[in-house]
């Protein structure tokens, strides 16, 4: 039988389950499918690991020792983790499934889970993680560019983003319109934007608080 070449996956899978055997065998199965896997038998272990920046998802047992997977999901969100979560549960009862989904769980798999459902769920998780990574990248980029501005330039930038005319900005800041024009030119240059619309988009991307990344 010809060996099949398994394509390497760019998605890193974190597995948390209080049963080491489960962590181990799921790890083997996922590795066999080309994923990079890191297994943990408790949420604390996972939290002790340095934040991971790349594409990732979390495979989380719903019934952990002394703790519900739903509470762990909650906790992670509060700490700023934004990676998609796929739940694994011994029994899928309606209330906990509903709650998990409401709180942003991507999928809800019932143990014992077989390979196809698992891979399918991970594929969906990858798509979501990718979208989220892109978003974060944009935010980071915007923040970096805005950081290049001087204090005065930043003021002018914000007022432009609010839709004020040069004349109004001059009045607001108590400077001449010509000065405003000079600042504005520098802002456009530093932010590498060529239109007011692009500038507004960039500033608004910086707006959502970067809370999730603070914990990482």
């Amino acid at each position: 039988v010809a060996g099949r070449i398994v394509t390497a996956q760019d998605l890193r899978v974190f597995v948390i389950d209080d049963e080491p055997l489960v962590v181990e065998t799921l790890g083997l199965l996922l590795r066999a499918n080309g994923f990079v896997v890191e297994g943990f038998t408790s949420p604390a272990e996972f939290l002790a690991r340095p934040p991971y920046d790349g594409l990732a998802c979390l495979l989380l047992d719903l019934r952990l020792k002394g703790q519900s997977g739903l509470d762990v999901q909650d906790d992670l969100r509060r700490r700023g983790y934004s990676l998609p979560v796929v739940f694994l549960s011994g029994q899928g009862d309606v209330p906990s499934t509903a709650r998990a989904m409401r709180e942003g769980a991507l999928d809800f798999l019932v143990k014992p889970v077989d390979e196809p459902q698992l891979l399918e769920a991970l594929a969906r998780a990858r798509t979501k993680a990718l979208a989220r990574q892109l978003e974060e990248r944009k935010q980071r980029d915007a923040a970096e560019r805005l950081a290049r501005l001087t204090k005065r330039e930043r003021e002018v930038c914000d007022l432009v983003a609010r839709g004020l005319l040069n004349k109004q900005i001059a009045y607001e800041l108590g400077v001449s319109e010509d000065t405003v024009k000079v600042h504005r030119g520098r802002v456009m240059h530093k932010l590498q934007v060529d239109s007011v619309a692009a500038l507004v988009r960039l500033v608004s991307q910086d707006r959502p608080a970067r809370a999730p990344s603070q914990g990482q």
Partner: protein
Amino acid sequence: MRSLTPVVPAVALLALVWDCPSASAQPRSVRTALAVHWSSEDYPSNPVVDAAIRQVLQSRDEAPVDYFAEYLESDRFPDEHATLAFRDYLQRKYQGRRIDVVLAITDPALQFVLKYRDQLFPGVPIVASASSTLGAHLAADGVTGVTGRAADAETIELALSLHPSTQRVFVVVQKLTDGYLEGVQAALAKSAERVELRFIQEGSVPGLPAVVRAVPANSLIHFIRFSREDPGNVMFPLEVVRMVAEASPVPVYASTDSFVGTGVVGGMVRLAPRIGSRIGEIALQVLDGRRPQDIPFEQMPAAPVFDWRQVQRWGIDRSLLPPGSEIRYREPTAWELYRWYIVGALALVAVQGVTIAALVVQRSRRREVEARNSAMLHAMPDAMLLLTRDGMFVDYHTSDKSRIEAKPDEFCGRHLREVFPREVAAAFEERFVRLVSGQVPARLEYALQTSDGERQYEARIAACGDHHLLAVVRDITERKHAERQLYTLQNQLAQASRLTALGEFAASIAHEVRQPLTAIIAGARAALRFLSSGSTTEARESLSNVLDAGKRADEVIERNRELFRSHTVRKEPLDINRVVLDAAAMAGLRIESGRVALTTSLAEGLPTIGGDPIQLHQVLLNLIVNAIDAMDTTDAASRRLEITTALASPGTVQVSVRDNGVGLDPVDTQQMFTLSYTTKEAGTGVGLSISRSIVEAHGGRLWAEQNPTRGATFSFTVPALGALPPALEPVAS
């Protein structure tokens, strides 16, 4: 009879003879009084005054007075010669007749009497009713009597008090004598200060009504005196006042007694009868020898008098009338007329009412009692049967005839055995025997085929006198039906709780079993992947994991069984006998429907055990039901279930449930307590397993033994409360 008859006339004669001398024995000196009235005899006040005088003067039988009355009609015959003719008439008429006292009523009469006193009645004392102006100074002349002027001012005062908004008073008065009008005006001087007084100056009677009619509102008319004396067309003041009152648009008042009734409202008047009787009384004093000089003139007060019809006509507030007013012409009310009839009638009605009320109350009470009794009888779905001790029907009672299937003559006088089916009659007779042998009232349940289908009855039988028995029979079909339903529900509940217990057990193992299952599946899949990519090392690792997981699954199941077995028990102090009796009661219907005879033999003085009553009930019910089921094939008449309690060892109580059913297959005793073992088609196979778990959780033991004769005995022990659980007994499985 005969001898009595002559006596009566003799007595009557004697009485006559007796009476005669007494009448003539004291001849009295008859004195004479002569009254001179003014105006004609029919002048309204004259008969009143005269009658009053006459009544007083003749009131004393011991001093009779001859009383004569004459009438000076100078008002109608004012000519001097008419007066002289009257004088001569009196002179001739009373010539030779001693007059002891002369009564002169009114001023004109007094003036006449005084004027001709020497010719007519020389030296005779005079008692007069005169105006005050004429009174007092005459005392020295042997004249006394009563005085009183017309109370015109007081009348106007009274009228004003009744009509506060009055602005004017029109006075109707006629010149009578010289200075008369001036006198009236002087008397009314005070009234003139309070209200505008106008004297009607119309001189003729026919003109008067027109004048009166023109009187404006908010006025009053005070009628003093007015008459017409044209010869041939005479009108007394009485008629004039009537005319005036008729024409007047405002209330008319007057101060003359006799005017009240003609249409005037009323006034302050001197009452004619009082004048008459007072004069009479004074005259009597004079006749008795008192000198007139010694009797001072007396003032006759005026009193308020009203015509009720006028009071009502003018809408006068009755409460304004002065207290003590004399009210005339009032239609007496029914109350006044028939007061006592009314009181009597009311009393009668009241008495009747009370009687009727009492009867009604009594009747309603009786009805209430009757209704209650009848309600009780009807509410009592019992039939009462009276039987002889031999079982012969004597009598019966029922609230509802339809409850008795048979007609009375079909069973009265017959024997139980002729009326009831054989088994029922036998059961009755068996109870009778027990009852007669001195035991407590017996109870019996039986079923009969009726037109309604099978119905169930309960009979309570008690001795009734020395020769009879009373059976109170109650139809308990519905109750039984309800009990059966309850039993079904209880059964379902027990089943449900068993299933719930299983469900929990299942759930608790499910999660733990799924973990190794997950590992097995994932490991196997991984092995397949690795094998297909040639990674044998990883494949081996995966398969080794699968193996581990398989073992883990078995461990999980085993651990859970252990967990379930040593499930902690809530322990409360319990009397094991109580638990047994409760469980037996709960299984009552089942025992009955299984036609099983239950006997309990419970040891006394057993120690209190510690346990969960519900769980122990479950164990006992389980054993009882198993026993009953085991006796399915046993002859119905000989199915016996015996529950005993005993002290197994100090600190341990033993309960045994013994049946005479199919008994145990020796092989079964090894497996019967395992989870899935059952010989019943409908059984879940968990009954004994769970029972054993429960007993063991209580620190006791459950086992089964084959009886030497027939059937099996299931026993379990429970340690007493506080007693140390026996050293872990080996688990018999």
